[in-house]
């Protein structure tokens, strides 16, 4: 099943695709290009690079000292590029089921027989979602935003919009649902 998570190895391979980098550069570029993701830790990057070197996915090409510890520059091997190409082309299996806190809350509210509470919750949740969509819309329309930020905002907006559509439908169904629930 698709876990929805990207492995650090594939991230590193993707970032090395445009040329040699050392660990510090990889961390910086990752955090810049994926501003919505959790920042990568240096330790995690270096441990991953060492493991990938043993697997033949990357090579260490040079070592230099710049105001501090040694920095090793890595490049992707032919095997690494093949692995990246395969992974990028691989279709991910959509999750077979979705667990969602909103749906669970509404269902439980209906089970307790409180149709009003379920509808009220949906309306207030809808308001909170739209407020967050306004934040992302500002990010998206800011001329200073990078393409990575715009793409991340588009993705977040699509998901929030899907939630909102479900809330609208759920709100319309609430009365009918209570009648159907055993």
């Amino acid at each position: 099943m698709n876990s929805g998570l990207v492995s650090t190895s594939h991230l590193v391979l993707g970032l090395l695709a445009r040329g040699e980098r050392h660990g510090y550069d990889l961390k910086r570029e990752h955090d810049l290009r994926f501003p919505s993701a959790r920042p990568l830790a240096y330790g995690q990057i270096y441990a991953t690079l060492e493991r990938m070197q043993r697997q033949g996915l990357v090579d260490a090409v040079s070592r230099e000292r710049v105001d501090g510890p040694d920095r090793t520059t890595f490049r992707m091997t032919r095997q690494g590029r093949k692995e990246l190409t395969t992974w990028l082309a691989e279709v991910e299996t959509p999750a077979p089921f979705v667990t969602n806190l909103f749906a669970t809350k509404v269902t439980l509210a209906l089970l307790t027989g409180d149709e009003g509470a379920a509808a009220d919750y949906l309306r207030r949740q809808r308001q909170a979602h739209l407020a967050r969509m306004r934040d992302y819309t500002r990010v998206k329309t800011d001329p200073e935003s990078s393409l990575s930020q715009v793409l991340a905002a588009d993705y977040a907006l699509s998901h929030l919009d899907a939630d909102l559509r479900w809330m609208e439908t759920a709100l319309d169904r609430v009365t009918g649902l209570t009648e159907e629930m055993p």
Partner: protein
Amino acid sequence: MTVAAALRADSDAEMNRSPLLSARSVVVSYGRTPALRGVTMSVGGGEIVAVTGASGSGKSTLLLCLAGILRPDVGEVRFGDRVISAESEAARSRLRRREFGVLFQFGQLVPELSAVENVALPLLLSGVRRRPATTAALEWLDRFGIADLADSRPPQMSGGQGQRVAVARAMVTEPVVVFADEPTGALDTLAGEQVLAQLVRVTREAGTTVILVTHDTRVAAYADREVVIRDGMLDEVATGSSDRPTS
């Protein structure tokens, strides 16, 4: 811009603004079918407010009332100190020409006229002479980055280009309020985004109030806040505390 910066901007948008346009207990029926059943709401100067709701909820009827196009059966609509719902059709028509701009989903451009002629039209109808009207129209086309379309006619333009011309036309009289009803409903996502981003940028620069009617929450997210209409009434819970009706 980061989301944190956007959150700060959100709280800035919450600052108090004096009410410019308001509806109080507005009721409208089409024959025996009620469209609005007592809506009260207000909009501050310079605000961008999305009026949302499902198809048939009454949101477009509310826009027609706020724009002075339709007179409510009961209740009143105020623009500043004026009770426009009590004014004659001629007075409301003058008000619309001078103070309001309108933008709809389809068909607002005259197909036989070029882009610049279309944009100049509201000025010509208000008595502005042809030369200054044309100059102003060209300036607005330029602000929307479509000066190169000045001599094109609507059938020669893409949907997005046509709608940008329509936005320029709505803005050419430098209105106090722009009323937009599903302005990007006929456009694909990216073309719609471009139109909305330009509409928001230009109206914010000019301090213009915008009433944006839409069923699409992604469009509503361009506004400062949302007013939700459900079955002809204001959904107060979904609208939230950010709506501050005037007394």
